């Protein structure tokens, strides 16, 4: 009744091709942005901002990057953590070695370094496909784990690869309180989400999807696999690298290579798959699910006053997490984004479906 496009006529190509063609969607997204930029910083507690919102924003950004590679271009990658690590450590090096590099520039340069390495590790994808490629991308993961632990130059000669940053500021405004961190991450996320959405709607996004659906057929109709695959790797690892920089600089403050180990890669892949492959919206749903679930599971025993020792609790968390993931995959293999679009379809006809 409320969510219906009747009477919304488009009289120009511009109007026809906008991101949200339905008026109600535009209103909703504006409301959501207002909520995120104004209401959340005002009302959310410091703990909520620090423990949930900031990780959620940064991991959504990383999931968004990964979704471009896995969901849109169909190249499974198990090495996302590596590209996050490269983004974080490269940004750290730019800040530590060059006097007066602004934070945002350092983060973007970190993303650029990640892009270069991403393209390098993307080259085998021209020949290796499917699960073979998935395992081969683990080479990137283990290599960077090792490099940041053993090659002292990358970590400015700190032992065991642990580095820390302090005194961050953007345009002279210090980034210290959770609200400031939150707003910075939100700014990055909104810009990159808009960018990603427009990329996947454009010519290049169509090329990626053609490659995903069948790369031989795509090549036959004139799409260059080299170009399409490598750009997907480049864009994806750029976004993931920036997310890694944010994760290190904003969320952790001081970190070591283990912060970006293989578990992080799996976590991001879970987000993308549970959220929905090939959906920008899905990246957010997946990140929300995976970030909130462990916090929720940790808290659950306290709410019900069930005393559990920490070992049992952590094992239980593992079990429930694993079981829920399997459950979700069985119930909706196409991810939460599919549920979302089904709900929207239903809403269009509600309350008179016939």
């Amino acid at each position, binding site marked *: 009744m409320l969510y219906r496009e009747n009477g919304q006529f488009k009289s120009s190509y511009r109007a026809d091709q906008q991101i949200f063609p339905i008026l109600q969607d535009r209103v909703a997204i504006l409301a959501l942005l207002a909520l995120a930029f104004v209401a959340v910083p005002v009302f959310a507690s410091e703990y909520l901002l620090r423990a949930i919102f900031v990780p959620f924003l940064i991991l959504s950004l990383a999931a968004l990057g990964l979704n471009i590679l896995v969901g849109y271009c169909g190249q499974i990658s198990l090495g996302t953590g590596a590209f996050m690590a490269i983004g974080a450590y490269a940004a750290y090096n730019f800040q530590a070695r060059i006097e007066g590099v602004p934070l945002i520039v350092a983060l973007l340069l970190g993303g650029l370094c990640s892009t270069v390495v991403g393209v390098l590790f993307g080259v*085998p994808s021209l020949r290796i*496909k499917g*699960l073979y490629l998935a*395992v081969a991308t683990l*080479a990137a993961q283990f290599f960077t784990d090792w490099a940041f632990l053993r090659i002292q130059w990358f970590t400015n000669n700190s032992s065991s690869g642990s580095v820390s940053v302090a005194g961050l500021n953007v345009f002279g405004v210090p980034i210290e309180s959770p609200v400031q961190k939150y707003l910075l991450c939100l700014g990055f996320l909104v810009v990159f989400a808009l960018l990603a959405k427009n990329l996947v709607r454009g010519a290049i996004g169509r090329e990626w999807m053609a490659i995903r659906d069948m790369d031989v*057929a795509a090549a036959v109709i004139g799409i260059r696999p080299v170009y399409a695959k490598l750009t997907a790797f480049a864009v994806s690892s750029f976004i993931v690298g920036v997310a890694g920089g944010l994760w290190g600089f904003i969320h952790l403050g001081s970190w070591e290579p283990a912060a970006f180990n293989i578990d992080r890669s799996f976590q991001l892949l879970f987000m993308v798959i549970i959220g929905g492959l090939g959906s920008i919206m899905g990246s957010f749903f997946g990140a929300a699910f995976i970030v909130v679930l462990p916090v929720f599971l940790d808290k659950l025993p306290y709410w019900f006053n069930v005393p559990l020792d920490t*070992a049992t609790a952590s094992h239980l968390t*593992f079990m429930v*997490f*694993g079981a829920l993931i399997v459950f979700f995959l069985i119930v909706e293999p196409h991810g939460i984004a599919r549920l979302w679009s089904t709900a929207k379809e239903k809403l269009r006809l509600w309350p008179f479906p016939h």
Partner: protein
Amino acid sequence: MGFFLETLFGGLMVGMLYSLIALGFVLIYKASGVFNFSQGAMVLFAALAMARFYEWIPKWFGFDNKLLANVLAFAVAVAIMIAVAWVIERLVLRKLVNQEHITLLMATLGISYFLEGFGQMLFGSDIYKIDVGMPKDPVIVLEKLLEGGVLINKEDLYAAAIAAALVALLALFFQKTATGRALRAVADDHQAAQSIGIPLGRIWIIVWSVAGVVALVAGVIWGSKLGVQFSLSLVALKALPVVILGGLTSVPGAIIGGLIIGVGEKLSEIYIGPKLGGGIEIWFAYVLALLFLLVRPQGLFGEKIIDRV
């Protein structure tokens, strides 16, 4: 020269153990098209069950015979792995038929989280010992040919022999029995196999059980070497490059891939490692596999990938 040979033998032995884990991957991939990431968790789970029942069974029944305790514990562990296979088939695989590779891969990751949590909750999370009476003392061979001879760990020799025997047994099972033939048929083409009356569900349970037993054997061998603890589930990560190097669908590939990775890893650690700062084992295996794949994208013995439009 003696040192080189020692390293080479060491690599071959380790490689044999990698093959054992890789075998579990290949068996399941062939029969159900699932890239089973939970193989490592299954190794851990099986080894934990074995180690704990080895302690518990003599206590419950009040006898003190090491051999009997080992045999009983092994039998119980086999039963548990079969039960696990049955549950996985019932609750997960059956509901995910015809899904994409990556969905199935993620589902097995979920299973592996579950098994890791469940196993440690059930059996405890300390370090346990498995003692199946493998000799720990080293032997020196080739003393006549080389000065000082070549030092070999007897335990490794036994382990390699067990692994080889298991592989031979599996090969016989696949080639000579009716069930084995059914398994190969399913591996070839699910639909065709089903249409001539091969029960897919039962075949999957059998394959996952066999993979569970292979995981148990791997767990026992690795466990008696390193002790049974959480890190056991990580050996699966070392078996992954073996699987893709040998080819996802090939049993001999798993063996030869394992040997190549084992030897390459040990030799590189000794001869290249010091120049790069050490600890290169883990990524070297992957890079080696990657280089092989660039030449043969389907692995050494995998089925040729043919793309048709």
